[in-house]
């Protein structure tokens, strides 16, 4: 798939999103040449105000993952987003599949519900 086709598919899937969403999409596209890519902003589900970009989920389908165990696949995704993860990106859910895997099972599990996280940082027991 060429760049413009992927970008169009991305727009159709979830809208352009904010600046961080666009950065994530661009970096993952450049690093992994995915055949399918979904970038989902989960920040509202974690209590973020409108426009917040802190919690994301990405579904990356790429031939680059072939032969790699899950840990290595996720590390490739993290590497592409190293600057963002050191910065505003607080949480990142990752689904990393090869094109064959995605074809045989084109579904991704939903993200787990938020349980408060750092907002509830306080000493307990």
């Amino acid at each position, binding site marked *: 798939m060429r760049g413009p086709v992927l970008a169009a598919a991305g727009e159709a899937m979830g809208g352009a999103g904010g600046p961080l969403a666009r950065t994530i999409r661009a970096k993952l596209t450049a690093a992994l040449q995915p055949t399918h890519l979904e970038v989902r902003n989960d920040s509202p589900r974690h209590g973020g105000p409108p426009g917040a970009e802190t919690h994301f989920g990405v579904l990356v389908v790429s031939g680059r993952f072939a032969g790699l165990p*899950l*840990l290595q696949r*996720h*590390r490739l995704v*993290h590497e592409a987003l190293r600057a963002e*993860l*050191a910065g505003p990106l607080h*949480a*990142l*859910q*990752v*689904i990393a599949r090869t094109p064959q895997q995605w074809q045989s099972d084109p579904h991704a*599990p939903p*993200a*787990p*519900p*938020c*349980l*408060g*996280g*750092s907002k*509830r*940082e306080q*000493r*307990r*027991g």
Partner: protein
Amino acid sequence: MRAAVRTGWRIGAAAALRGRAGRPLSQAAGEGGEAEGGGGGSGSREAVERLVREHPVVVFMKGSPAQPLCGFSNAVVQILRLHGVEDYRAHDVLQDPDLRQGIKNYSNWPTIPQVYLNGEFVGGCDILLQMHQNGDLVEELKKLGIRSALLDAEKDQEKK
């Protein structure tokens, strides 16, 4: 009750690592500041190494197994519970900022939760979920001498 006792022990241990003067031991020993430690003390490579080796199953999470404070951490707890794994070491990184940074440095992994099996980092919530779904987790637990409860559940179903 057990979780509270364990938490108390961990906080005590972290304080002990810092030494009476309140400074991290690595600095007190005169070594130069290391970029890799999370400020030394409980976040140092040595301290984390001790933690990941103290039990076959070690989890770094937000909150505790009794009360997870993050959906991803909760998912890890629930998956382990499904397999009947209730005896493991869980460390609440929200209680210890040095450990929170130190564990990320140690595994070169940017997020919490982190799961270690036999001292080896296996991944976070997403990976554990996939290992659970594809049967790999049952196999990995078996290597640790832990029999997954799901195997017994399957056997019960076959009997019916």
